[in-house]
């Protein structure tokens, strides 16, 4: 009996040591097979305010330590803006837009398009691609009435910008986080997840799911 208790204690201690030794992941990251996935742009669960506060602190601390480090980040706006306004904002912030996120305010539809020249051109490309797909699906999948309704709203100019993925120096990203119209600048930086992936030789994937200003899904 004593031996059994001793063995159980040793095993329990070993489990505790193992759990402490394991680098934990943040609430917005998880392991999927051979990769670590980190969500950026909003909380997977929990309070938006807490998430924004926490991620802004991380960005500011990083900016204090490594201001010139260049990172990707998603700028989440607190309102929908036109593509022209989004171009003006990124120009003012002196960052290179890489992908723009658009939505139909009040509707379930949203999506993204890579930015090659300007946000406005990317938005035009998104509309063109979306309508082309919807036109083909009107013939192939006529059951999807929601898609056709969304396409009609988009055709009438309903698509608005709510987030822009950019690349820039951390110090600049931290400044943008304070700008009018910005809810959150969420950098592609997660020390826990990056350490975890490096330690185990896993790939790291940033999954961008920005919060929408209308609370849409």
């Amino acid at each position, binding site marked *: 009996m004593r031996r059994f208790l001793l063995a159980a204690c040793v095993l329990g201690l070993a489990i505790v040591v193992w759990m402490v030794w394991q680098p934990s992941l943040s609430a917005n990251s*998880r392991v*999927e097979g051979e990769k670590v996935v980190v969500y950026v742009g909003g909380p*997977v669960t929990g309070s938006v305010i807490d998430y924004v506060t926490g991620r802004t602190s991380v960005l500011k601390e990083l900016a204090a330590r490594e201001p010139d480090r260049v990172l990707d980040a998603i700028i989440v706006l607190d309102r929908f803006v036109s593509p022209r306004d989004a171009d003006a904002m990124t120009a003012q912030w002196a960052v290179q837009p890489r992908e723009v996120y658009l939505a139909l305010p009040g509707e379930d539809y949203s999506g993204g398009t890579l930015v090659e020249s300007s946000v406005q051109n990317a938005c035009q490309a998104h509309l063109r691609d979306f309508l082309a797909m919807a036109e083909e699906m009107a013939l192939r999948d006529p059951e*999807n009435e*929601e898609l056709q309704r969304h396409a009609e709203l988009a055709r009438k100019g309903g698509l608005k910008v709510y987030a822009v993925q950019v690349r820039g120096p951390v110090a600049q990203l931290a400044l943008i986080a304070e700008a009018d119209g910005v809810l959150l600048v969420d950098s592609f930086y997660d020390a826990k997840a990056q350490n975890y992936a490096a330690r185990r030789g896993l790939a790291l994937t940033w999954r961008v799911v920005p919060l929408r200003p209308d609370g849409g*899904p």
Partner: protein
Amino acid sequence: MTFVSAPAYAWDWYTPHDGYTFADEDYYYLRGVWSSTSVDKYSWWDAWEGELRGTSQAISAYYSGLGSSWGGSFPGRYREYDSNDVMLGMASPHLMSANTTYYAYTYTTPSSGQPGSFSVLLESELCYDYGGLPDPVPRDWETITTFTIPGSASW
């Protein structure tokens, strides 16, 4: 161009009970309807993905990456590509309503050697999202159907 109707099958709870997919040389479209059982079971830590995988070769033999545009109505939608699959996913399936149509699409980049037609399977994958846990957690998946691109399948 082929059209495939999958045989009647008892799908696992996380798979849309009704759906349609289409893919051609440069895009992938997916529509699904989930039952009330599915919607009730999904929790905030779950994610769902509809993955296209090559049946005889890796998907990278057919697509070299993602195209410029993507979108849809999946709650918390995302898209991903790796050498094994092209994926349309949703981070928040628990926000779905039962018996409601959801869809997503992504443009893709054809590989330089993309054949005129090729066979893929559509896989329904459930991901558990226990953020913060130190170790990988089990996932589940099942094949919904196999079809030829360019072409479509419904179930």
